[in-house]
């Protein structure tokens, strides 16, 4: 129960941060990606900068820990192994991101702000995820996990 509450708190902060930073506004995200439009919006660079600082500190603290505070082990994806599906999938994601101005986090957060268009996008996104699961020819859905037990 404690772990569920921690995850909920993290989700709350994440959702609040997305809206506060303007990243829940698809047109603003697209204005960042729009280099030819003459009105480039740099806000996303500040968001990334702001988010990377606490995360970089957290990675440093993690090195000194044998286990996370509320669980028995770290379960983290591998950092190496640049595969065709990693690059191909990321390129596809970038195309969809550019088309609609939405990535998964803001799309879910926007269910509370603009329910109708957000729900249409999220439904299509889940459809795309299911499609990927159904296609057996595309391997490496999950990178190998690096687990360190206490």
């Amino acid at each position: 129960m404690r772990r569920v509450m921690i995850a909920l708190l993290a989700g709350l902060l994440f959702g609040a941060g997305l809206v506060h930073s303007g990243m829940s506004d698809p047109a603003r995200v697209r204005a960042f990606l729009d280099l030819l439009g003459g009105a480039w919006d740099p806000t996303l660079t500040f968001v990334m900068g702001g988010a990377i600082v606490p995360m970089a500190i957290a990675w440093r603290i993690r090195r000194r820990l044998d286990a996370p505070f509320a669980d028995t082990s770290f379960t983290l994806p591998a950092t190496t192994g640049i595969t065709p599906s990693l690059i191909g999938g990321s390129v596809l994601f970038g195309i969809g991101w550019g088309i609609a101005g939405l990535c998964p986090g803001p799309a879910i957060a926007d269910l509370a702000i603009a329910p109708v268009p957000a729900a249409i996008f999220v439904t299509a996104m889940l459809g795309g995820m299911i499609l990927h699961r159904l296609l057996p020819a595309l391997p490496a859905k999950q990178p190998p996990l690096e687990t360190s037990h206490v």
Partner: protein
Amino acid sequence: MNWAGAMPLAGLTGGLLIGLAGAIMLLGLGRIAGVSGLIARATGIAPGGTPWPIASAFIIGLPVGAWLIALVAGSVTTRFPPSMTVLVLGGLIVGFGTRMGSGCTSGHGVCGLSRLSPRSIAATSSFMVAGFATVALMRVLGVSW
């Protein structure tokens, strides 16, 4: 450059909240706050990985946190694409691509870059370049919104 419309301070503080959320997931639960993976897990599309209650609690937190901050702020600007086609096409490609590429802006972008993970650096560069190229191409083709 559109500095008048930009929100550097709100971007920075909102970003700090996002990074704090990622730090809580990492140091509290030993996991990556990667939204695409957690959505796939919460909906059962991904069969394994993060325990379902944890993934679901995080995903439920996103709209609730958004709603709470919108309540405090009074009004929030969200300008969605006006076309159903754009929403559906974008959604399908984002869903497929994030699963194939094992992550999105949060997992690869925020968590992976700050870890200096070569995989995440490669993934983030790929989706950034693809995003810039797509918006530029849409502008050239006259289908920008």
